[in-house]
C-alpha cells in the first residue's frame, strides 16, 4: 500500500463529509423519517442542474443555494401530496423524489452534457479527484471539497449544539414542544434545510449513494449502542469517521489482494458503514443479537436448572430411603430435554448444588434450600390459582410451573399472605418453608 498526501486529503474530505451527514442523520433516524434523507439527497439534483444552467459555472455557492431551495421544496411537496391525496408519507416521498431526480438527470443530460457534471459523478461522487481541485488557505493548498465540508460540519455542529434542547424536545414530543412555544414544524424545516445543504456539500465528493448511507447508518448503528442522546451523537461521529478511514484503506488494499485495481473509496465507505452497522447489530451490549441470545440462553438454562432441582426435590420427597438416585437418562426423560439437561446438570455440579450419589444425583444442602424455595413458589402458586382464582383444572400445575421461575422472594411472601399461609397445596403436598 502506498500512502501519499492525496490519500490523506481523500480521507480527511470523506471524514468531514461523512461526519456532517451523520450528525444531522441522527435526527432523521430518531424522528423515524430516514426516508426523508433519501428523498432530499436525490431531489436536490434538479436544483444543482438549474443553478448550473443559470450561472454556467460550477461555483459552490449558487449550486448550494439552488439545491437547498429544491431540497426544502421537496419537504413542502411531500407534505402537500400527503395532505391533498391522502397517500401515506412513504409513497408521497417516493413520488416526489424519483420525479425530481429524473428531472435533474434530464436537465443535466440536455443542458450540461458538455461539461464534467455527469450523472455517474452525481451517483458515486469523485472523491479521488477532490485533492486536485485546491484553493489556497492559511498558506496551504487545501482541497476545495475539504473546505466546503468542514464549513458544513461546523454549521451542523453549531446548530446541534445551540439547539440541542430544542431539537431534543421537538424530536421526542413535538406536541409538547409546540405548546411551550418551541414550534416543531419550524425546527423540522430548519433541519430539512440543513439536510439539503449538507447533502449538496457532500454530493460532489462522495455522491448521493454515500450521502444516504452516511445520513442513516451511523445514527442507526449508534442507537443500537447507547440510550443517551449526547453519546449517540458522539458515537455517530466516531462511526462516520471510522467509515471514511476504513473505506479508503480497504478501497486501496482489498481489491489489490485479489489482483484487481483499487476501487471507489465512496463505495467502500458505504460497505464499511454496512459492516459497522452489522457489527453493532450483532455485538451491541444491550440490543445486539448476540447479547440478546446469551441472555435468552442464560434464562433458558436457569429454567432447566430449576427444573432439575425441583425434580430431585420431589423425588427425594416421595422416594423410600433405600431407593436409588435419579440418573442423567431419567432426568432427560422426565424433562424432555437432551443437551440442555446435560448442561444444566454440569453447571449444578460445578456450583455444588447437586452431587453424584449411587450412579445418579442428589441435592446438596445448598441445592436443597434453593429447590425448596422453587417448590414453595410452585405450590403457593397452585394454592393461589386454585384457591383465589378458582382455576383448579389439571393445567394448574403447568401454569404454576411457568410462574415458579419468575417468582422472587418478595412476590413469594406476598403470595403466601394472599393465600393465608397454607401448609399444604391443593394436591395435599406439603409446602416447604
Amino acid at each position, binding site marked *: 500500500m502506498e500512502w501519499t498526501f492525496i490519500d490523506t486529503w481523500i480521507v480527511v474530505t470523506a471524514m468531514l463529509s461523512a461526519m456532517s451527514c451523520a450528525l444531522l442523520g441522527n435526527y432523521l433516524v430518531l424522528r423515524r423519517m430516514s426516508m426523508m434523507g433519501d428523498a432530499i439527497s436525490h431531489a436536490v439534483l434538479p436544483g444543482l442542474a438549474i443553478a448550473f444552467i443559470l450561472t454556467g459555472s460550477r461555483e459552490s455557492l449558487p449550486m448550494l443555494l439552488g439545491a437547498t431551495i429544491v431540497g426544502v421544496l421537496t419537504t*413542502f411537496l411531500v407534505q*402537500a401530496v400527503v*395532505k391533498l391525496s*391522502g397517500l401515506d408519507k412513504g409513497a408521497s416521498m417516493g413520488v416526489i423524489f424519483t420525479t425530481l431526480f429524473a428531472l435533474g438527470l434530464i436537465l443535466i443530460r440536455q443542458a450540461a452534457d458538455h461539461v464534467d457534471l455527469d450523472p455517474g459523478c452525481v451517483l458515486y461522487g469523485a472523491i479521488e479527484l477532490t485533492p486536485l481541485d485546491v484553493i489556497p488557505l492559511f498558506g496551504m493548498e487545501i482541497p476545495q471539497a475539504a473546505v466546503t465540508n468542514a464549513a458544513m460540519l461546523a454549521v451542523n455542529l453549531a446548530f446541534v449544539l445551540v439547539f*440541542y434542547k430544542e431539537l*431534543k424536545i421537538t424530536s421526542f*414530543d413535538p*406536541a409538547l414542544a*409546540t405548546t*411551550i412555544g418551541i414550534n416543531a414544524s419550524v425546527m423540522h424545516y430548519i433541519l430539512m434545510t440543513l439536510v439539503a445543504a449538507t447533502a449538496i456539500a457532500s454530493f460532489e465528493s462522495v455522491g448521493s449513494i454515500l450521502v444516504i448511507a452516511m445520513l442513516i447508518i451511523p445514527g442507526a448503528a449508534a442507537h443500537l449502542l447507547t440510550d443517551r442522546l449526547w453519546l449517540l451523537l458522539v458515537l455517530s461521529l466516531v462511526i462516520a469517521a471510522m467509515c471514511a478511514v476504513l473505506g479508503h484503506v480497504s478501497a486501496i488494499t482489498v481489491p489489490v489482494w485479489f489482483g484487481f485495481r483499487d476501487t471507489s473509496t465512496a463505495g467502500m465507505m458505504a460497505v464499511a458503514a454496512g459492516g459497522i452497522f452489522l457489527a453493532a447489530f450483532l455485538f451491541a451490549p444491550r440490543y445486539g443479537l448476540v447479547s440478546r441470545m446469551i441472555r435468552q440462553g442464560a434464562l433458558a438454562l436457569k429454567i432447566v436448572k430449576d427444573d432439575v432441582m425441583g425434580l430431585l426435590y420431589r423425588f427425594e420427597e416421595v422416594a423410600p430411603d433405600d431407593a436409588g438416585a435419579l440418573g442423567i437418562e431419567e432426568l432427560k426423560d422426565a424433562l424432555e430435554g437432551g443437551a440442555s439437561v446435560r448442561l444444566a446438570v454440569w453447571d449444578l455440579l460445578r456450583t455444588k448444588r447437586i452431587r453424584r450419589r449411587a450412579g445418579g444425583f442428589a441435592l446438596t444442602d445448598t441445592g436443597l434450600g434453593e429447590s425448596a424455595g422453587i417448590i414453595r413458589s410452585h405450590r403457593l402458586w397452585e394454592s393461589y390459582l386454585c384457591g383465589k382464582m378458582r382455576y383448579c383444572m389439571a393445567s394448574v400445575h403447568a401454569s404454576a410451573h411457568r410462574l415458579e421461575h419468575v417468582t422472587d422472594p418478595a412476590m413469594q411472601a406476598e403470595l403466601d399472605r394472599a393465600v393465608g399461609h397454607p401448609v399444604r397445596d391443593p394436591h395435599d403436598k406439603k409446602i416447604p418453608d
Partner: protein
Amino acid sequence: MGRPLPANTVFRKRCRKAADMQTPEANDKTAGVPPREASHRRSSQGAPNPGRGPGNGPDIMPDAIDDATAPLSVKDLTVAYQRKPVLWDVELTLPEGRLIAVVGPNGAGKSTLIKAILGLVPRASGRVSIYGKPYEAQRHLVGYVPQRESVDWDFPVNALDVVAMGFYRKIGWLRPVTRSHRLAAVKELEKVGMADYAHRQISQLSGGQQQRIFLARALAQDARIYFMDEPFAGVDTATERAIIALLKDLKASGKTCVVVHHDLQTVPTYFDHVVLLNMRVVAHGPTEAVFTEENLKKTYGGRLTLLSQAFYELSKDPRLPRGTKGSQE
C-alpha cells in the same frame, strides 16, 4: 406553489356565516346572559347547525363564572379533520381550582378539543382564552400531558431528561439544562414515586411508570391549568392511585385540571366537574348536577346516530373538496 387548501375551508366559511350573525353589538347584549341563551338565539336564527333542534342546546349550568378570569373559556370552536367535522360549535367556560373530566364516546373529539385549545390542530373557527387572554399569550400558564402513545418511547433519553423537558420553556431558547434543573426534576420525580427510576431509559419503564414520568414533567411545567389526555389509560392500580393523589394535590394548590377520561364509573369519585362531549358540548357543570343518566344517554345514545347521519349527508355536498380520504383520528 401555494399552500395546500385546508380541507376545512368550507366549514370555516360556514362558521364565519354563523359568527357574522352574532355581531359585536349582539355580543355585548348577551354578555350578561348565560351562554345557554346565546346559543339558542343563534340556532333559532337558522345557523347551519345540524342535530341541534330547539330545546336541545347544551345544558350549561350557569356557574356564574366570569369569562375574563376563568381559567378556560372556549367560544364557538369548530374543528374539522379533512372534511369530517370533529367538534362543532363548542362553548365552554370552566371554573378555577377544579378537577374537570372530559367524557364522551370514542370519536367524540375529546383529544381534539384539548389539541384545538392548545393550537395543535387548526381551528376552523372559534376563540380560546386562558385567564381572559388568548392562549398564545398565556402559554406559560398551561401544562400539557399528551397521550402516552403519542411519543416514541425508544427515544434515547432517560426519565430525568423527559421530566427536565418540563423546564424548557422556563429555561428559554438556547440555554442549556443545568444541574439545578436536574435536581429540580428529581424532586418532581419524587412526587410521583419515580425518583429511583430517574436514570432508567424510558423504554424500560412500564406503561404506568411512563405515565407517571409524563405527570412529573407536567408538574415541572408549573402551570395554573393542566390539560391531560387520558392519563388513566392502561395504567396499573398503583399508578392510578398516584395520579389521583397528584390531582388532589394540584386542586388543593388551586390549579385547574382538565382530564380526558374514559372510565365513566370513576367520574363521580375522581372529578368534581364534568364536560360531556360528543362533537359538541352536551352538558357541563358540577358532577352531581350534570353527570346524570339522562345527560349520559344524550352523550352516548340515540342522537349520535342522527348527527352522524347529518354529517354523512353533508359530506356528499359537491362543493366540498374532492379526493381527501383517510382521517387523522
